[in-house]
Structure formats: structure tokens, C-alpha cells
């Protein structure tokens, strides 16, 4: 059964998938002025994203063991939102520094994408396993729940990729889009937290 809470979790997972790929795609645009637009730029970006997502999955799974709650889930989104902001604010000085210290644009771009994307993507990676934990109520359906969740978040990734690359880059500055993702993630986190508080209050009223 799809409760309101579950619908919210699916929607949040969708949005995180959307944001991850949107940011990854813009990574190429952000790095190009310093490291070019050759194939190794994408090598650097995809490596860093895959690596940090894998760490994020581990961490998110671990975090979900003790007292999982919608509030903590919302907090992950809030932290992710905050961690995405430096991409827009400090990319220039960070890349300029790396550029002047590393000649080889392969390792330069690898280091730059690590500096810019490693931490926010780890946090975003925590969302998937945590979602599974919140959604699964019995082990029999755990596979189905996980499948549904992958479906929703990967669909979000697909849409995030195409909408960012086809339309958003025509309408907005790169930094505007990045800050937009941060804003959406933060708002969703707050919604999840207030939703949890509301539910707790309802439960208290129901008891009283």
C-alpha cells in the first residue's frame, strides 16, 4: 500500500536521482575552462561520482541501522543541499589553484572533480539505502521495494540528465542550476522533517 509517507520517500528518491545526474552533467561544463572537454574529463567526473556513490551507499546503509526516521532522512537532504553550494561558490578558485599546480590535465581534472563533487555525492548516495530501510516493512517484499526504489531514482537520473542538458543550460547559468538543485534538496529535506513532526503530533493527539 502506498501511504503518504511512502509516496513522499519515493518522490524524494526521485529528486535525489535527478539532482545527482544534473550535477554530474554540469561537472563537464564546470571543468572545461580549466581542463578542456576531452574524454578524460568525463573519465574523471564519472570515476569520482561512482566512487563517492559507492561510499555513500555503505554509509547510508550503516546509518539506517539505528532508529531510522523520516527526520534523519530529511537531514541527509539538508546536509546534501549545503554540500552542493560550494560547487557554485568555490569552483573557480579551487580549479585555478589545481591548474597552477598540476600540468597534466588528466590528474588535474581528477583532483578538481574530487574536490568539488566527492563529498556532496557521498551524501546524495546515502539516500538510496536509507530509503529502502524506511520503505521495507517485511523481508518478503524487500526485493520488490528495492526494485521500485531503483526504478524511481534511476528514472529521476535519466530525466535529470536530459532536462539539464537539453533545456536548463539554454535557460540558466550553470551556477543558477547548481544552486537550484541545492535549493530543491534543502526544501525537500525540510518537508520530510516537518512531515515527520506533524505525524508525531498526530500520533500524540490520537493517543490523547
Amino acid at each position, binding site marked *: 500500500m502506498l501511504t503518504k509517507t511512502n509516496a513522499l520517500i519515493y518522490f524524494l528518491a526521485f529528486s535525489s536521482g535527478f539532482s545527482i545526474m544534473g550535477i554530474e552533467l554540469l561537472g563537464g561544463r564546470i571543468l572545461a*575552462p580549466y581542463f*578542456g572537454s576531452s574524454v578524460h574529463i568525463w573519465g574523471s567526473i564519472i570515476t569520482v561520482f561512482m566512487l563517492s556513490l559507492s561510499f555513500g551507499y555503505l554509509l547510508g546503509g550503516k546509518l539506517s541501522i539505528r532508529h531510522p526516521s523520516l527526520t534523519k532522512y530529511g537531514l541527509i537532504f539538508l546536509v546534501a543541499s549545503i554540500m552542493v553550494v560550494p560547487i557554485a561558490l568555490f569552483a573557480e578558485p579551487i580549479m585555478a589553484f589545481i591548474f597552477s599546480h598540476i600540468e597534466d590535465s588528466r590528474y588535474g581534472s581528477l583532483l578538481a572533480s574530487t574536490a568539488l563533487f566527492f563529498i556532496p555525492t557521498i551524501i546524495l548516495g546515502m539516500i538510496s539505502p536509507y530509503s529502502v530501510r524506511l520503505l521495507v516493512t517485511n523481508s518478503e517484499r524487500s526485493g520488490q521495494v528495492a526494485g521500485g526504489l531503483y526504478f524511481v531514482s534511476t528514472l529521476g537520473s535519466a530525466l535529470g540528465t536530459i532536462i539539464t542538458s537539453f533545456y536548463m543550460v539554454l535557460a540558466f547559468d550553470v551556477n543558477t542550476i547548481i544552486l537550484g538543485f541545492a535549493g530543491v534538496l534543502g526544501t525537500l529535506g525540510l518537508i520530510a522533517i516537518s512531515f515527520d513532526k506533524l505525524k508525531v503530533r498526530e500520533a500524540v493527539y490520537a493517543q490523547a
Partner: protein
Amino acid sequence: MHKLKLLFISIMALLFSAHSMSNVVHKERSLYRNLLVEETGDLRCLKFDEKTRQSSQSCMYISDPKKLVFNYTKLAFSSLLLIDNPKNVLIIGLGGGTLSNMIHELYPKAHIENVEIDPSVIKVARDYFNFIETDNVTTKVQDGRIFIKRAALKSQQFDWIILDAFNGDYIPEHLLTKEFFEEIKSVLAEGGIVAANTFSSSKLYEHESATYHAVFGDFINVTANNNSNRIILAGYNKTPTEQQIAQRVKQLAPLLAPYDVDIEAISQRMFFTKDGKDWPSDTKVLTDQYSPANLLNF
């Protein structure tokens, strides 16, 4: 039935003659694209083989390699109407090395730095287009943007910068932004000039003009009659007078004639943006933050 047979025969004849007319002498897949060297009669061309079409990047007359084939290459020499005796030349985008060769012949003492991202293009230029490299003429495999950034860090200066990195199908978007042009400006020597081979159709024309104007102020558009290409001349500090241009034409005409460059005709095809801008004043300038050049190029 007879008509059909005739049609079939004529089609076959056409196919065979077309086949014998152009002759692929070299083919290779580079890191970036498929390269093709094709000979048609006296003409040898370097082509980028795209699915939809083959676009000629550089051509040479086999019997007379000195003579320039493409109009835009000829137009690029309008730069010499504004500068004299360049000492440090930078060419971004090698193609067959035609520009480099000709500038080297005209000014043997000039140092020419060619920057090309695709090592296979350099190889083909050496093997099939007599691309000359000496102590003074060097080539570097690098992204143009990175080269200029490094040159700026080393405080290098060039008095003639030629941008020829676009092919018809794809624009490296980071080479068409305000920030890139500012970096170019920082390595442009006093009294030097930037010549850019760009587009003259599509919506991009306006954005490109606005972006050049934002960095360099007024510039000169040089276009051929058929209007398919334009050369932008920018970065000069004093607009030359008609008399100055006429004087340079007189000096240059005999030097450039062997290359089939009619500098007098070219000098008639220069349009100064200070006399009128052909783009709306609210056109969005392309920046590193906003550079959907390929999406605008329709």
C-alpha cells in the same frame, strides 16, 4: 523496359565515374573523429567524416601547394592589413597546416606556435599536406583553452592569434565564451590582432558578435560574397583609416598574389562594427556559465 535499362546504365556510369573521381588516400579513426584524406583530381582534402556529411577541413592543390583553396583561409590574411611583420604567431586549430606554412614562408623569422588537440590531425598534416615544422614553427597537442591559460601564467605574448578550432558540425563551447576571449586578450601583445574563423549564419552569429564586442570592443567582420564564413578581426587598439588600408594593400598585393589571395578584393569586404552593429543590443553574451553554443547553432 528499354528506358529502364538506359536509366540503370546511366546510374551505374555515374556511380563509377564518381568513384573514380575522388580517391581516399588515407583513413583513420582518431581520438575525436574519423579522418579522411581524399584526392579529387588536383585537389587533396582533409575531411572529418561525420555520419551525415563529410566536411572539408583543409584542402591543397597537389600541383601547386602554395595556392590557397578556401576562401576563409584567404580572408584570414586581412589581419595583415592591421599588423606588420608579426613576430609571435599563435594558431589554435591546425587543420592541414596551411596557415602555418604560408605565414612561415611570408615571415621566416616569425615564431609560429600551432596548437591542435588531435594528434592524428598533426600526423596527417605532416604526411599529406607538407606541413613544415622548424625551430621557429612548433606544434603542441593541447586543448586551446588550456594552452592560452598556461601561456597567460607564463606571461607569454603573441602579436597574431588565429582561432580556427571550429568545424561546421561541432563547436568546443569553452572556446566561445567571454572568459576565454579575456584570456586571449591577456596574451595579446600591444598592437597585436586576433583573427577568428567563425560562422555567419544561425542564431549563434549574434551571440558570437555580442561576446566579441563585450571583450574587445568594436571589431571588423570580413566576409566573402557568398557569406558562408566570416573572419572576425579584433583586439586592435586603433581602427585603421582607409588610406592606411589602401597603403597596406599596395604593399601586400604582390606578396600575397602567389597564394591566390586577392588582398584588394578582401579589403573591400571588411565591415566595421563601429559603423553599425548587425546584432540586437540585448543579445546575451556567452560565458563559461552560459555557453550552449551548439544548441544555438541552428
